[in-house]
């Protein structure tokens, strides 16, 4: 191992805090398991550094490997540790007597459990708020948050994730995975293509040749447009959509209602075990006309399921 590599390694070791050392080395994976076990992490940093340098020389690691380690440390540390510390400190500043527990899951999700208490009483663990944040995405999922504590939590989140503001996404439901998949488009997307259908198969059995769908083109068009709007395959299991209408009543045969000036307030709720699946089926079977109306297509496109519709512009 040449001098440059040694120097880099020593400089890097000065940067990495002792608490993160072991996990970073594990993630790096360039040292075999026995070598890692032989490192005694209870010693002083200097001693560990010397031992590490010796191990790396044995394994004949080069500058490239050391730079790898530096990159891993940067990626690993910046997000999670900083976020954790900052969130805890911000929240404690805003409100005393809160109990916060943060845990990171394997799939890049940070779960935070907050038990609220005010200055007089202890944190109430029976009614804890859960927050899930996917690092590097601008999305936060919150469960069971009272309106009293809402601004505090939102402010702590905004500051610790280094954003400017936080706003409601108007998406709610029972299953976290469904909401996440919808928001982050983790389902099969269908993109419009100029020549959608592949070449027809040449070996059709005799009986298939005798059955022909007369309006096959129209039906294929409907399927394609439904797929483009809602996606292909398994769709995230969204369970309801809520439309709040505040529009003027429009019915030429009903004079009494149309004469009123104030808007007619009405709410429409769709619910199903898998709402997106049902909407896609409506579009592909012709029950809903295609191209799909923006009222329905906004659900997957904008990732919302609560809409307020006023006269000028839909989806306020």
């Amino acid at each position, binding site marked *: 191992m040449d001098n440059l590599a040694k120097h880099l390694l020593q400089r890097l070791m000065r940067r990495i805090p002792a608490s993160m050392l072991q996990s970073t080395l594990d993630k790096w994976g360039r040292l075999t398991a026995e070598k890692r076990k032989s490192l005694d992490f209870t010693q002083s940093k200097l001693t560990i550094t010397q031992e590490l340098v010796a191990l790396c020389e044995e394994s004949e690691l080069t500058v490239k490997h050391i730079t790898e380690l530096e990159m891993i440390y940067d990626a690993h540390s910046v997000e999670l540790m900083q976020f954790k510390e900052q969130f805890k400190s911000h929240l404690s500043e805003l409100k005393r007597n809160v109990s916060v527990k943060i845990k990171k899951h394997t799939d890049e999700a940070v779960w935070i459990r907050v038990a609220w208490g005010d200055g007089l009483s202890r944190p109430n663990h029976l009614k804890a708020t859960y927050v899930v944040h996917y690092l590097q995405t601008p999305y936060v999922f919150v469960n069971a948050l009272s309106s009293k504590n809402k601004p505090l939590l939102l402010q702590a989140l905004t500051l610790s994730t280094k954003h400017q503001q936080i706003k409601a996404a108007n998406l709610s439901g029972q299953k976290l995975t469904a909401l996440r998949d919808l928001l982050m488009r983790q389902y099969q997307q269908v993109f419009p293509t100029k020549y959608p259908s592949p070449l027809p198969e040449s070996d059709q059995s005799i*009986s298939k040749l*005798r*059955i*022909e*769908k*007369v*309006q096959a*083109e*129209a*039906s294929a068009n409907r399927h394609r447009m439904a797929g483009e709007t809602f996606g292909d395959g398994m769709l995230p299991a969204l369970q309801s959509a809520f439309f709040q209408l505040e529009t003027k009543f429009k019915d030429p045969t009903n004079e009494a209602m149309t004469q009123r000036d104030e808007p007619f307030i009405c709410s429409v709720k769709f619910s199903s075990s898998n709402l997106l699946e049902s909407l896609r089926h409506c579009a592909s*079977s*012709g*029950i809903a006309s295609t191209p799909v109306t923006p009222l329905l297509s906004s659900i997957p496109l904008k990732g919302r399921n609560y809409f307020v519709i006023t006269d000028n512009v839909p989806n306020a």
Partner: protein
Amino acid sequence: MSLLKPFSKLPDLNTANILLVENEEQFQQNLANTLVEETAVTVTVRLAKSLPLPMENDESRPRIDLVVFIINLTSDKSFESAKASLKYLVPGYFLGKVCFMATNARHASVRTGCLDALRQLAVSLHCPLLFAEDQTPEGAASSARRLLTILKVASGLVPNTTALYLSNLTRCTMPPDIDQPSFD
């Protein structure tokens, strides 16, 4: 307007052509698969969602011997779509070459009066009204058998019988009024 005409094209040898019209496009596929398994006659099946049929494939289409409207009694839309399609058939079809098939007649969510309305329609057009069970393969098989009987006659493959003769026997009639007591 692209009307469907019964005798505007030449027939093929030992062939029968049936058109299944269904708004939901579900049961017709099972029926079609069973119908083409018939060996004595070559059966070709055309599937459509509603009439009128598109003009583009008019030349490639053979002459249609029997038009079957499959109506799901639990859905109003099904019935309305079938009624709207009727006007695209030339009156010549109603001399035994049209048949109505109703599914889900025993379902709990059938609207009252729907079955009666369908019956009225079938009676006024002198067409047979069949009832089918669409959830099991046996249901599809038995409906296919009954359709084949009518189809063979309608395509002229049964000697000494025409579709008009058969329709006199099979056409739907309104049941006598139950309110009128038959005994005193």
